[in-house]
């Protein structure tokens, strides 16, 4: 019988040998790229910060709360609120529409539709994600804007006009129109990511519920959906990120009005649209103000993402599907 001492120790490998082994190379490469991503993020913040220093100093926090955006040389006042408001409102409208529809469609595709049909439909839906946003904008101008101006807007005003959210004037372009376009644009992300999440739920989970006497719907709604909730939340935030940053299509249909309006039928502006429209001809103060808006947008996206992470950690500490 071999005594423990007789067992030969594996020889310590020289660095060159380990490098040749590949593990070390892979390790160094991956850590390099990981740090690179971090550095790029830090660099972006640094640059935005440096470029917006003039307005950061000039307006301080009143920039965020300011409601007036006036680049006239004799005024030169810049406030971010109308654009933060427009960005949030259009994104929320978009999600209110695209989340229920998208998740519903994903349930149909993963739980009800036959496999082949599901694959074909998913392929088509994913094609939608590849359509350039300027095309969505054009399409909306030709179809949605007149529809909104002549039918949907007046209809909403007639029945919901007593709320502050659906009042004249009705231009056709505006928050609601932009929100609808964004809904269509976020739809493919939500459908395809949610569908993946639902399809990843093990068959045994569904069968366990059915075997206890659950109906198909109970099994889907009470077992499958909660199991897939992380993935579904992920899809929503992917959609939200897309909606917050979308520039072209929104610029074409939101009306580009620098004032805040409560009515969704009225015109507004988003951060991305404003920067795209004005940056090229921006003056000495206006330029830094626009960059500071970008910084705000960046922070908003970061905060939302962090919030999402936090929510996921909090809601999954008990009974997590991926504990």
């Amino acid at each position, binding site marked *: 019988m071999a005594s423990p001492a007789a067992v030969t120790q594996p020889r310590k490998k020289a660095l060159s040998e380990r490098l040749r082994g590949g593990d070390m190379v892979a390790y160094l490469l991956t850590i390099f790229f990981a740090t690179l991503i971090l550095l790029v993020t830090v660099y972006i913040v640094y640059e935005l910060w440096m470029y917006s220093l003039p307005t950061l100093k000039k307006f301080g926090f009143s920039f965020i709360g300011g409601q007036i955006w006036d680049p006239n040389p004799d005024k030169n006042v810049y406030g971010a609120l109308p654009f933060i408001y427009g960005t949030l409102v259009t994104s929320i409208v978009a999600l209110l529409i695209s989340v229920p529809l998208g998740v519903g469609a994903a349930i149909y595709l993963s739980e009800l539709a036959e496999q082949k049909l599901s694959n074909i439909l998913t392929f088509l839906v994913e094609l939608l994600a590849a359509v350039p946003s300027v095309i969505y904008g054009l399409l909306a101008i030709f179809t949605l804007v007149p529809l909104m101006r002549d039918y949907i807007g007046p209809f909403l005003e007639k029945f919901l006009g007593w709320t502050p959210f659906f009042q004249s004037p009705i231009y056709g372009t505006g928050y609601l129109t932009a929100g609808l376009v964004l809904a269509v644009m976020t739809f493919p992300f939500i459908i395809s990511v949610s569908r993946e999440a639902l399809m990843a739920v093990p068959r045994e989970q569904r069968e366990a519920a*059915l075997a206890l006497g659950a109906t198909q719907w109970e099994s889907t709604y009470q077992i499958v959906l909660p199991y897939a909730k992380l993935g579904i939340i992920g899809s929503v935030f992917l959609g939200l990120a897309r909606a917050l940053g979308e520039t072209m299509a929104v610029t074409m249909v939101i009306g580009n009005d620098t004032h805040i309006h409560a009515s969704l039928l009225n015109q507004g502006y988003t951060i991305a649209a404003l920067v795209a429209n004005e940056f090229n001809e921006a003056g000495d103060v206006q330029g830094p103000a626009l960059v500071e808006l970008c910084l705000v947008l960046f922070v908003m996206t970061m905060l939302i993402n962090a919030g999402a992470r936090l929510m996921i950690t909090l809601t999954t500490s008990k009974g997590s599907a991926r504990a």
Partner: protein
Amino acid sequence: MASPTSTPEATPAHRAKMRAENVNFFYGSFQALHNINIEFRENQVTALIGPSGCGKSTFLRNLNRINETLRGTRLEGQILLDGEDIMQEDVTTIRRRVGMVFQRPNPFPKSIFENIIYGPKINGMVKGNASEIVESSLRRAALWDEVKDKLHESAYALSGGQQQRLCIARGLAVNPDVLLLDEPCSALDPIATAKIEDLLFTLKEQCTIVIVTHSMQQAARVADQTGFFLLGKLIEFDKTDIIFKNPAKRETEDYITGRFG
């Protein structure tokens, strides 16, 4: 001589609870079960053995109609529960009355408490007595003492063997008449396996048990009757003693003595 459809003589105490008559089953055009005739007696454990792919799971999954959720499947013949054709009854009622425990533990990603109470809830059996249902179900599955202090923790925090007993408790919570177990111990170590086997002895006082197993020792230990499947056919079905000591069929003998294939 025993024919494939022969059954051990009935004693009044063990009347037939469930019975399959001339069951054929198809996955698309592939016939997985050929003319199965078998019956399961009240308060008895019946084991189904046979080589991999012979149709044990397929047969078991027809007894609670879970196989009909797969596309393109077709069942011929009759399966009777207390003399009533299960295909004529409401499917959710059948599944409540015929519980199932799967090969791999599959608790829901919820707390232990919620796992147990889920079945009673959807079947409208909870009337302010949720805690009692949870406790009695866990006791029946011999899990209560191990989890009573962490009922509201994730079921995923339990060991594999505990998870499987949790799944048994979850199935028992809706008071099934029949409990189907498909290789419930195949993912468990010998100690966890022994616990579940012990459990079956007490559980059969309350319901009819059908267990699929790959372990002949397990069948010999727990089952009153044993059925031997081969290539989608029920070759022999008899008292466990007879199957293991004095089988009537050559194929059965080859299988239990390990001379198979």
